[in-house]
């Protein structure tokens, strides 16, 4: 069954997608599934381990389940400071 997920893209991901946020209908069980299913949108070849994810403004793991209505934030590798 598909879930409605709001996805937010950051930095390079956003530039590739051409939008900062969109709502998509996906057959995804985990945050990792969202990343994989949206490869064409964020365009990243980075391994999952290099990137980070948050769900509803809480840092999450790629194995964290996603629910209908969740907002999933896809973070490219960070470079603070």
């Amino acid at each position: 069954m598909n879930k409605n997920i709001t996805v937010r893209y950051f930095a390079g991901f956003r530039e590739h997608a051409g939008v900062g946020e969109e709502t998509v209908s996906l057959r995804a069980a985990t945050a990792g599934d969202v990343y994989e299913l949206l490869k064409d949108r964020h365009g990243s070849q980075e391994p999952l381990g290099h990137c980070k994810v948050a769900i509803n403004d809480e840092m999450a793991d790629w194995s964290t389940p996603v629910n209908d209505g969740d907002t999933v934030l896809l973070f490219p590798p960070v470079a603070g400071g």
Partner: protein
Amino acid sequence: MRIINSAIEPDKLRQLLTGDAAGAYVAFEGWIRNENEGQGVLRLEYEVYAPLAVKEGAKIIAEAREKYPILNAACVHREGLLEIGECAVWVGVTSAHRDEAFAACRFIIDEVKVRLPVWKKEYYVNGDSGWVNCERCAMHAQPERKVAG
């Protein structure tokens, strides 16, 4: 932990950490420099996801307080476009003695650099630009790179 889009003012921030029991103050500042990995840099753009950056930064500072017997600690990170020489990040720590101020300041900046949801895009002298730390996503995200380079 604060994210701001105007100039960081270290002297004002330093005042917030003062206290009669503080004998040592250590500060770190990250400045925009004109070069990275051999390429001339013109300016940098910082993208910050503030809601989580503030939360994660506060967590890092709390961890530093648990690890080291410090008195006070704070961190401020810039967002937006920064020119060469500008301060991108400031960390300040006070303690009774200098050992723990040095250690905690180093801990905080090290963690900030790898944990905060902050991304920087470098604009190079040769017209290229690129997201730092994002080799394989940058290639895809910036087809204009090949055109410009």
